[in-house]
């Protein structure tokens, strides 16, 4: 059994508007048999935080195009993307790309 872990989730660039406009979320993921990875975190967010129109955040089993995912201030591509194994106190940011000027 993996112990429960606490995470700091942040949403920005407009992605926060899918979460009642709240940018910062401190969450605790419950204990489960396997360690938590990003794939499971996305499902957890979809089930527990996303209020409406989940397709504007998740498409298929990953984040929709135009949202950049950052784990501890690094692009998740450098960290293993969906397979990254989450650690207690990790900081995960979902940032919508801006296009205005």
């Amino acid at each position, binding site marked *: 059994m993996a112990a429960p872990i606490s995470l700091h989730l942040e949403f*920005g*660039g*407009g992605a926060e508007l899918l979460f009642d406009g709240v940018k910062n979320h401190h969450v605790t993921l419950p204990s489960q048999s396997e360690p938590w990875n990003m794939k499971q975190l996305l499902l957890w967010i979809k089930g527990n935080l996303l209020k409406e129109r989940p397709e*504007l955040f998740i*498409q298929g089993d990953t984040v*929709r*195009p*135009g*949202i*950049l995912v*950052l784990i501890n*201030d*690094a*692009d998740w*591509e*450098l960290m293993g993307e969906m397979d990254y194994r989450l650690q207690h106190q990790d900081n995960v940011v979902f*940032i*919508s*790309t*801006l*296009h*205005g*000027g």
Partner: protein
Amino acid sequence: PLQEKPFLSNEEIMRYSRQLLVPQFGVKGQQQLCRTSVLVVGCGGLGCPLAQYLAAAGVGRLGLLDYDEVELGNLHRQVLHGEDRKGKPKALSAAASLKRLNSAVDYVPYHMQLTPENALQLVQQYPCMDIIADCSDNVPTRYLVNDACVLAGKPLVSASALRMEGQLTVYNYCGGPCYRCLYPVPPPPETVTNCSDGGVLGVVPGIMGCFQALEILKIASGQEPGYRQQLLMFDAQEARFRTIKLRPRQAGCSVCGENPSVRALQDYEKFCGSAATDKCRRLCLL
């Protein structure tokens, strides 16, 4: 690059004396800057401060591209225009204001839309541009500018702003990623918010445009830019900056990868499912 001048003139020494004194810039930096051509794609909230500080610093040539005309609703952030410019092409208005500040710069206004047909020519052929600044306001143009820069081998200094947030990255430079490496698939059109829809506090693109100018000054003068393979995120509400380490150039990227499928510019409005403007998006979706 423009022709090399072996010496700075007395007038140049007077005008640029305060930046000649800066050790990291100096006479060598000034000489390199005077030989550099920069294409500014978009003379709006980002392009105005960017062009202002590049012109003031003495860049050699400044291409100023915008298809649009000045409107009253632009003036809260597009500080090179003015009330008497309403209805005038932004590219010409920007050039006229900049000329007052520094008449030694070669301004090349382009009152036209950047298109897959003209982009490579604008970037590559006479007058050849050394660095491209993406100050545009819509998704298709951002992919178009990126692909043109990759195909022409030019560094792209890109910024964007919305509401009270800004983002900045230097693309396609020294092993760093291109825009498509980060965003291989365009966002669904219904998820894109423009400044016309979402608003923007004018000083936010002001700050981001100044940063773009700084990154360009560093590249032009031979310093290492700060945001190659990095993303600057600015949140004006929380007065917070954050620097993110990005992925390197991706071998599988469709334009800058090892086996690119994009070998010529394509139809970006079709690719993105939206129009290359920040205005009629909703209209076009009907």
